């Protein structure tokens, strides 16, 4: 009766993306080397990294966490983001029926190796709308500076 609630039409793009994943894996032996800490596509949380003239900006798409429980550490040039997502199932009531359980849960941890020119003493982290935003300043010597011409 509830088929429609969890039936997800397999569009062309879904099939292409599956094909892409399979091909990527089968060609990996001949392709560019993997980063040592790389994870499978679609791992939780997804991470985007941007760079400005004065900072490195890391965004971790980690919805549904308690800000105080997120562990952000920088150690020996590696930024590590760890935490735990509580199970969403409301209680252990056996009369509750689950139709879809796609959202990842449990402990997670991701690590990013930082470039050499960051200043690990100047790190700021904020959690908003389910996105953890870590901003790391670049070392002063790495920032662009204008040279006065004598």
């Amino acid at each position, binding site marked *: *009766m*509830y088929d*429609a*609630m*969890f039936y*997800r039409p397999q569009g062309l793009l879904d099939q292409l993306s599956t094909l892409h994943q399979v091909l990527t894996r089968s060609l990996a032996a001949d392709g560019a080397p993997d980063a040592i800490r790389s994870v499978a*596509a679609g*791992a939780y*949380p*997804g*991470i*985007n*990294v*941007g*760079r*400005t*003239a004065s*900072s490195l*900006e890391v*965004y971790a*798409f*980690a*919805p*549904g*966490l308690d800000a105080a429980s997120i562990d952000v550490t920088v150690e020996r040039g590696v930024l590590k983001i760890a935490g735990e997502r509580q199970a*969403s*199932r*409301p209680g252990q*009531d056996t*009369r*509750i*029926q*689950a*139709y*879809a*359980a*796609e*959202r*990842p849960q449990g402990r997670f941890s991701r690590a990013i190796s930082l470039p050499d020119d960051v200043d690990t003493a100047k790190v700021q982290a*904020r*959690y*908003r*709308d*389910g*996105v953890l*935003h870590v*901003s790391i300043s670049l070392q002063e010597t790495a920032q662009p500076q204008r040279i006065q011409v004598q």
Partner: protein
Amino acid sequence: MTKTDLATTERGRTEPSSDATGRKPASTTAATAPAVDIFEDAGGITLLADMPGVARESLDVRLDGDSLAIEGEVSLPTSEGMRAIWAEVNVPRYRRTFTLSRELDASRIEANLKDGVLSLRIPKQAHAQPRRISVQAG
């Protein structure tokens, strides 16, 4: 935490032209389907959807007949002159549509958005609530 009264959304919106099947043509902007959890208990259905980066203002929960659409746009605090050097999330929009069944009361849907998780509660119609039928002996 935000609460959206879906009943007003349902009535107050004038929809663009429908095609022959009565369904709106799908929006053409690229979007990813958010991961969801769906639970049913005696009183109704609870739907949780991961939509990180979506603020309350850019969330859209639409009801069109028996079709429930959730859509949201990702907005990140960006700095000036930023260029991306790594992107695992590269489509800044989530969209997913569900078909509701008739015993659900679409006019009483409640929506909450907290820390990038959208939670919808879709109650069942009063007459669809479970009722125990006693079996007569004899």
